[in-house]
């Protein structure tokens, strides 16, 4: 029988946040009578993830991604709903559960600051009771994959952000977790370091068969690593499926990039094209946004009416699609329930 590594059912988390109008009088009043407001962070989210999958969890700031990860790693208790991760209920925080998972946070460090990473790694090996032979093998493998041999004996304090992130990954993986939560692992890193970390995560997943949930604001991370994405917006799951279908489902339009013949460029560029929206106009280049179904007709119209030197039809960049979702501008969908039906 199929046993998912992560199974989430109607998971809901509502924070109760104290509320207080500004001013001293209100501050004093709040000492006696506290008013609170319920802030739903995650609402009725359900999904399952199979062993060995890499899934991207995406959504704007405050959408509920980190809350979801904290629920799945046992740091938070849900308001309602259930979750099973690696055969355990996360928030019971059993030692056998904690041994099977790992959470690496891009903005928090678990390294001991003043001593070389090797010392922190040894402590973690002991805490997770990793047998010495296995510890050495895992460490050697991770260090080789991340090419960080020379960092092992220098104090962490002096490391760059990228070097520190490599250490965080080793620290998080020494006990060979079956489930890995990566929260913004490439935050603040330069492009080449991002690429290397991505390659590492993919390679690690391939070798170890670990299940990975990744959150990131860099779409390149998601494109490179996650065949499947879960989109969360205002705490609700609005899309769960293949990355390739995301654009088609959520942004059912194409981009027509037109380069005009130089002589007539300026004058002709003013022409209105029916069924297309001009979203960029620069030096004789036009970018038109066209509904998917209309693309052939609009292309024909453009070729007929404009002095075209070059024309391409593209899918919109993922960033633009995501931005549209975040802005709530869901062209082609009447409402969110339509979106949910789409998955």
């Amino acid at each position, binding site marked *: 029988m199929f046993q998912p590594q992560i199974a989430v059912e109607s998971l809901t988390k509502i924070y109760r946040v104290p509320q207080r109008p500004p001013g001293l009088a209100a501050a004093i009043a709040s000492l006696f009578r506290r008013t609170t407001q319920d802030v739903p962070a995650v609402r009725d989210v359900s999904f399952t993830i199979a062993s060995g999958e890499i899934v991207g969890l995406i959504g704007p700031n405050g959408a509920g991604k980190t809350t979801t990860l*904290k629920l799945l790693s046992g*740091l938070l*208790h849900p308001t309602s709903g259930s979750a099973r991760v690696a055969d355990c209920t996360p928030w019971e925080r059993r030692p056998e559960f904690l041994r099977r998972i790992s959470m690496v946070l891009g903005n*928090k460090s*678990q390294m001991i*600051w*003043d001593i070389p990473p090797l010392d922190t790694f040894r402590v973690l090996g*002991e805490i997770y009771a990793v047998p010495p032979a296995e510890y050495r093998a895992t460490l050697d493998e991770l260090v080789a994959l991340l090419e960080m041999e020379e960092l092992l004996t220098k*104090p962490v304090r002096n490391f760059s952000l990228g070097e520190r992130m490599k250490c965080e990954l080793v620290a998080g993986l020494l006990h060979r977790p079956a489930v890995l939560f990566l929260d913004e692992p490439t935050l603040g890193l330069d492009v080449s370091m991002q690429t290397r970390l991505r390659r590492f995560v993919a390679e690690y997943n391939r070798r170890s068969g670990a299940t990975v949930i990744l959150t990131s604001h860099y779409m390149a991370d998601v494109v490179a690593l996650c065949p499947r994405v879960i989109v969360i917006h205002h705490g609700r799951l609005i899309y769960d499926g293949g990355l390739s279908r995301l654009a088609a489902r959520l942004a059912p339009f194409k981009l027509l990039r037109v380069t005009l013949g130089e002589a007539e460029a300026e004058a002709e560029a003013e022409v209105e094209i029916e069924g297309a929206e001009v979203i960029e106009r620069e030096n004789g280049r036009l970018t038109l946004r066209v509904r998917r179904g209309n693309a052939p007709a609009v292309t024909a119209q453009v070729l007929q009416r404009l002095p075209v030197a070059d024309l391409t039809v593209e899918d919109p960049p993922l960033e633009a699609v995501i931005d549209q979702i975040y802005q709530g501008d869901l062209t082609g969908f009447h409402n969110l329930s339509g979106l949910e039906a789409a998955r």
Partner: protein
Amino acid sequence: MTPLGTLNHRGGWALVKSTWTSWLQYRSFFFLLAFGWMLPPLIYLFVWSAAAGAGQVGGLNRGQFVGYYLILILVNQITYAQTNWTVGDVIRSGGLNSWLLRPMPPLYNVLSSELAGKVVYLAFVVPVAAALAVLLRPEVHPAPGGVPLAILATVLAWALRFFWGLWIALLAFWATRADALLAVQDALVFLLAGVVAPVPLLPAALRAVAAYLPFRYMVGFPVEIVTGQLHPAEIATGFALQVAWLAAALILARRVWRAGLRRYSAIGG
């Protein structure tokens, strides 16, 4: 499951060793802290030995005051629970998350820096106290059996001071500036635990208060035992009160920790 969760001594010991390594990088900083902590008793050492002059005050002569305060400096350093000050920061800064993600009770993290700290501080305080002993010629006349009893009382005093401070520090789950209460605790230790004057020398009213509150049992009590200021009956009562307060501190720390963790997992760090 124990009150600490599932035990993990192996991980705890590794943590102690790494904390040592880490703290030894900052020897001079910790030595300065330790120097700061030994200053008040050192000042009162000189005040009381000057007051005694060639005679006696409250039954103690100059050499006995020197002995009392040098031992108090050591006991104060051994029982000072410096981690009480850092627990609140860990809770506020979200550092608790990485403690909670590990298969080890977070108390180990606290105890390991406590233990590592003791070694680093004592590496400074013991030689300094020894040098002062050579210079100031203390007089100590322990009663028979006084030394082992005092050692036992010192260990209990540390546990009491640590867990009493811990439950106060854990109030950081609710209030951002709970460490103000720790400053109050330090002030009460200064006043009622034998630092400003040996407890038997306090005015009667204050002495009665000191005898029943927990603070004397955090520092002064073991020093009074080893310097022979207490009758056997007083020692027995003292141990009973010390153990009772320790039990209270353990129960409070455990309750506050559980309630705090419930709140933490409800609202997040």
